[in-house]
């Protein structure tokens, strides 16, 4: 794992927190970054740390060097992250230091988490069983992506409140969906407050028949078919019995995300389209009142490879006295071409870093590594 060298000391501002939400575009190394932040915290602080992923793509286990990962919070063996030290102040490139905290990891299984939620909020065992057996509920939790969002925030809250973790690091889905995840608790409250939900579920179990004359229900029925609408009605009626629990919890989750010990981290690379997505995301997070602690620029060229040094190097090669060997001439021309490409990349990185600094109180850089 990464986070080496002096620059990694900057990450201490992130690990002394209660909740770290790692977001950003896809493909920028978000999961690895979440794992690294969690590992650094557990290695250098006497704390209990949990890293959670909601990305269905199962990459957290790889980043932590584990064989597999499931819904249950699993301890990560100290050996798997002890060697990821040194933190910034260690002189050598790799020193094994015994971690002073503990690290757990989990990949949220949406279905299992929903079942837990229903069990917790259902007023009685009969309601719980009817919800779990409803065909709509089963599809909602198993097949479709939107239900991951709420459950992720719920698990985060549960881990902080009842799990006894001092720090929970969350790896979110790619940026366009990240805001959906964060908004999920508020959406849940809006959903329960909706007049239509009330209209559809008011009255006896035959409520739908009583409402059938309403144009809205007639339209819904023509589009969706009667049987489906009956399933929907039953499902919503069952859900409403759990309304108080869900609404109260959603409010608490929402507050936790804006608490003083929450840190939002946007990870990006310095190339488009990731850069533009990350910049937009940083703005939207701040606009919604989430505490943006840092932007992490990942895969940055080594600092001595600047546009100037590379352009000068390319020119120095070109101005050499002529080589007689055509292979040597071609090889040196290829070197000059690689230097020009690198100069172009270094130029883009410099422009991007300057732009990013305007968007967050802290900008951290992690190097481009070609070999894992």
């Amino acid at each position, binding site marked *: 794992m990464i986070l080496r060298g002096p620059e990694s000391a900057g990450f201490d501002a992130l690990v002394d927190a209660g909740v770290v939400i790692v977001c950003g575009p896809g493909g920028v190394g978000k999961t690895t970054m979440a794992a690294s932040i969690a590992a650094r915290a557990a290695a250098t602080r006497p704390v209990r740390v949990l890293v959670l992923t909601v990305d269905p793509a199962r990459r957290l286990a790889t980043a932590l060097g584990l064989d597999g990962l499931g819904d249950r919070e699993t301890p990560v063996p100290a050996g798997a992250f002890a060697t990821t030290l040194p933190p910034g102040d260690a002189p050598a490139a790799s020193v094994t230091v015994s971690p002073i905290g503990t690290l757990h990891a989990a990949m949220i299984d949406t279905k299992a988490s929903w079942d837990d939620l229903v069990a917790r909020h259902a007023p009685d065992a009969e309601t719980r069983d009817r919800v779990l057996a409803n065909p709509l509920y089963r599809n909602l939790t198993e097949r479709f992506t939107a239900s991951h969002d709420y459950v992720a925030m719920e698990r985060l809250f549960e881990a902080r409140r009842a799990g006894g973790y001092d720090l929970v690091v969350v790896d979110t889905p790619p940026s366009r969906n990240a805001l959906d995840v964060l908004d999920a608790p508020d959406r849940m409250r809006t959903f329960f407050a909706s007049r239509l939900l009330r209209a559809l579920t008011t009255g006896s179990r035959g409520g739908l028949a009583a409402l059938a004359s309403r144009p809205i229900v007639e339209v819904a029925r023509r589009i969706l078919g009667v049987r489906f609408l009956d399933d929907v009605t039953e499902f919503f009626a069952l859900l409403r019995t759990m309304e108080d629990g869900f609404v109260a919890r959603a409010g608490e989750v929402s507050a936790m995300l804006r608490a003083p010990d929450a840190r939002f981290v946007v990870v990006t690379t310095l190339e488009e389209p990731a850069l533009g997505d990350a910049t937009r995301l940083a703005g939207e997070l701040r606009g919604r009142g989430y505490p943006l602690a840092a932007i992490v620029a990942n895969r940055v060229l080594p600092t001595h490879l600047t546009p100037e040094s590379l352009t000068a190097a390319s020119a120095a090669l070109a101005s050499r006295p002529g080589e007689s060997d055509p292979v040597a001439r*071609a090889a040196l021309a290829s070197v000059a071409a690689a230097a020009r490409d690198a100069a172009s990349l270094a130029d883009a990185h410099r422009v991007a870093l300057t732009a990013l600094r305007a968007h967050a109180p802290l900008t951290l850089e992690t190097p481009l590594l070609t070999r894992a």
Partner: protein
Amino acid sequence: MTGKGGVGKSHVAAGIARAAAARGRRVLVADMQARGGLAAALGAADLGPAPREVAPGLHAIEMDTGDALREYVRLTLRVPWIANLSVLGPVFDLVAQAAPGVREVLGVGKLCWEVRARSYDLVVVDAESSGHVVAQVAAPSSLAAIITAGPIAGQVRWMSEILEDPARTGVVVTTTCEEMPVAETAELLERLATRSRVAVAGVVANRVPREPFTVDEAAWIAPYLDASTGLWERDLGNASAAARDATLLWRDRRAAAVEHLGVLRAAIADHARRHGGAPDVYLLPEIVSPDRAIVRDGLAAAIAEELS
């Protein structure tokens, strides 16, 4: 078109659509997400829910759930008495929250409608990323399992027929030659084979770093690149030292990409053994430039060449 986030799937979708249009085909290219990456990849101003011709023969749209619903109602249900469709909005939102598959089907359905209407020779869809695309392409059959009667039940049947016909529909997976994207591509191929009946038409390896040296050049330069020989400083001077580091970086990136490409090909071969039908792998070069237009045009040219 799908792939892990960040691999350039929208750019490859735009490039394929441009290449097909340049050959005289009538093409529709659609972004399944509002504010997705397609508009930027096409170099077009904001796209909307109505197809707009962005180049000769190339029409582009960005899907919008509300509009897709209105369009669906207008085209398929023929309920003229609903003068004010806005009444549908709240009902739809409510149902879509309970069964988000309804929303997915509306987007997929709109595009299947275009395929069935044959107004285009080719429909290129910039779909969900690899984590979610199986839910998207399988949405009609998933929905068929919960909605067993009514107009939607009939609609999803013909959508499934189009999506599951390999002569008409194929998934193209874009990846880069890096560890995580390659691993996700292998996983996605497996999930597509086991959880959907949609065929895979190809795998695109995007941003493959070019080989910096020919074989002869590499042999000549090797002792210079080895810092322990001191040859670079002696013969080429300290002024060009940064060029050596850049060359080493580029050589390592290329070597890493070749290694991951090997893993990708092995995974595809393994997949073919278990499920039959190995998809072709197409290679697209990395184009380094701070100028987005140069990257965009370079990629489109590379796609046109790779497809010819």
